[in-house]
C-alpha cells in the first residue's frame, strides 16, 4: 500500500501504477456530478445521434475537463459571499452505486481516469476501469467539512438552476484531496472482497440459531 500525489489531468501510466489500498492525494480541477448529471450526460451526449445545440458549449467544456479527469460523486453544501463567489462548506462523497448504470459509458466516452465517491461500484465500472485505464477513488463518507477544506476554489457551476444545488456540476480546484483506491485498473475491488467475506459470515451467523 503506497502513497501517491497526483495532478489532474492524470495519465494512463500514472493510473496503471495504482493498486487497491493505495492512498492518493489529488490536486487540480475536477467536477462534481451525481444522479441528475449522469442522466444528463447519457441523454444529451452519449446515447444520442446529435448533441442539442443548446448543450454544445457545456459539452465542449466537459470534454476538455474530463479528458484525463475525474467526476466527484458529491452534492455539496455551498455558501455565496458578498461578491457572488461560491465556496464549498461541506462536501463529502455520495453513494456511487446509483451511477452504476451510467458510469462505464461516461468513463469511456470522455476518456476519464476515474471517479471519486463512496461505497464502490459494480462490475460494469470495474470492467471500464480495466479497459480504459481508470480507477475508483474512495473518499471517506460524511467527512464533509474536512474535504471542503481541500477545495480551494469553485471555478464555475453549471446547471444549478435546472438541477438544484446538490445535483449541479460544480467545477472545483482541489489541493491534496485525500482518497483511497478501492477499485483499480487491474480488476481488483476491495468491495468485492469484503462482500464475499461478509456473505460467508452472514450464512454462518444465520445458521447458528
Amino acid at each position, binding site marked *: 500500500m503506497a502513497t501517491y500525489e497526483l495532478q489532474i489531468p492524470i495519465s494512463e501510466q500514472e493510473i496503471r501504477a495504482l493498486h487497491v489500498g493505495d492512498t492518493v492525494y489529488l490536486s487540480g480541477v475536477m467536477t462534481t456530478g451525481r444522479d441528475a448529471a449522469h442522466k444528463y450526460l447519457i441523454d444529451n451526449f452519449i446515447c444520442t445521434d446529435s448533441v442539442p445545440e443548446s448543450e454544445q458549449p457545456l459539452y465542449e467544456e466537459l470534454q476538455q475537463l474530463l479528458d484525463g479527469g475525474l467526476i466527484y460523486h458529491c452534492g455539496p*453544501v455551498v455558501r455565496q459571499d458578498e461578491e457572488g463567489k461560491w465556496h464549498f462548506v461541506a462536501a*463529502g462523497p455520495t453513494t456511487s452505486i446509483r451511477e452504476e448504470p451510467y458510469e462505464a459509458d461516461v468513463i469511456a466516452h470522455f476518456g476519464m481516469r476515474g471517479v471519486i465517491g463512496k*461505497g464502490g461500484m459494480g462490475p460494469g465500472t470495474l470492467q471500464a476501469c480495466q479497459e480504459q485505464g481508470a480507477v475508483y477513488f474512495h473518499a*471517506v*463518507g460524511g467527512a*464533509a467539512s474536512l474535504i471542503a477544506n481541500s477545495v480551494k476554489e469553485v471555478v464555475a457551476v453549471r446547471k444549478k438552476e435546472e438541477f*438544484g444545488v446538490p445535483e449541479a456540476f460544480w467545477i472545483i480546484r482541489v489541493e491534496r484531496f485525500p482518497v483511497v483506491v478501492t477499485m483499480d485498473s487491474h480488476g481488483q475491488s*476491495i468491495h468485492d472482497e469484503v462482500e464475499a467475506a461478509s456473505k460467508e459470515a452472514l450464512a454462518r451467523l*444465520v445458521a447458528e440459531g
Partner: protein
Amino acid sequence: MDKMTKAFIELVRRAATDLPADVEAVLQAAQAREEPGSAAAGALGTILENVALARANSTPVCQDTGTPIFYVYHSLGTSTRELRAQIEAAVAEATARAYLRPNAVDSLSGRNSGNNLGVEYPTFHFEEWEENYLQVKLLLKGGGSENVGIQYKLPHSPLKAGRDLEGVRKVVLDAVYQAQGKGCAPSVLGIALGSDRGYGYVHAKEQLFRPLKDVNPAPELAELEDRLLRDCNELGIGPMGFGGQTTVFGVKIGAYHRLPACYFVSVAYNCWACRRAQMTVQDEKVEYS
C-alpha cells in the same frame, strides 16, 4: 424573528454541525480497536478529525444534512400550528446560513425548493404528554442511510426467519449485510417490532434517540440488542466497508403491538453521522442536550 424560532435555529445548528458526545466516544473507541495503519483505522481517524473541524467551524458534519425529522412532545394547550410555523421558519433560516443543504425536491417537477420546505417537508410528529414543558427532538437523517432502511415481514422464508426474536436477529443481520457500500458504516440501528408499515419506521427512528449506553427495560430485548451488536460486527464489513472490527456501534429495539396477521421488523439504519439533538423549553428557559 421571535425567540422560539431563534431557539429552533440553534437546535438545527447543534444537530448539523456536531455529533452527540456518546457517539463520538464510541467512534474513538472503535478507532483504537482497528489495526494501526489499516484503511479502517484511517477512515475512523478522518471521521473524528472531520467532526472536530465541523464543531469548531459550525459547518455541517456531513454535506447530506438529510431529512429534518422533528418529534415534538407538548403539554395541553400548546398550539402545534404555531410550533410548526416557528420550526419551518427556523429550518429555512438554517438553510440560508448553510447549516443545512437545500434537500427538498418536488417529486413531480424534480425542482429543489431551495429552503428545505415543501409538501410534508420537514417531517413532524406531534404528541401531547403529561409533562408541563415542551421537548423537541431532531434527527437529521441522511439519504444514503435512509435508502438502506428496510422492512421485513415475518416469516421470511429466504432466511428461514420465523415469527420470534430469533427470526428478528436473522433479518436484521441481513439488513446490515445488504447496506454495505451504501449507508456509511459504522452504523447505529433503530428497530421496531410490530406496529403497521407506516408507524413501524416512525418508531424505529425514534429508537435512534436512545443513548448508546442505555439498557433496554425489556430483558429479552436487552439480550437481543447485545447479541446483534456482536453478530453484526462479526460480518467484518467495517468502517466505510473497508473491512474491520466495527460495523455497527448501537442496536436499539422497541416492541409494539401488531395485527395477528402481521409481524413487521422495521429497520432504520443510521450512518456514523448520527445527528440527533434535543431541547426542552420550560417557563421560557431553553436547554439543549
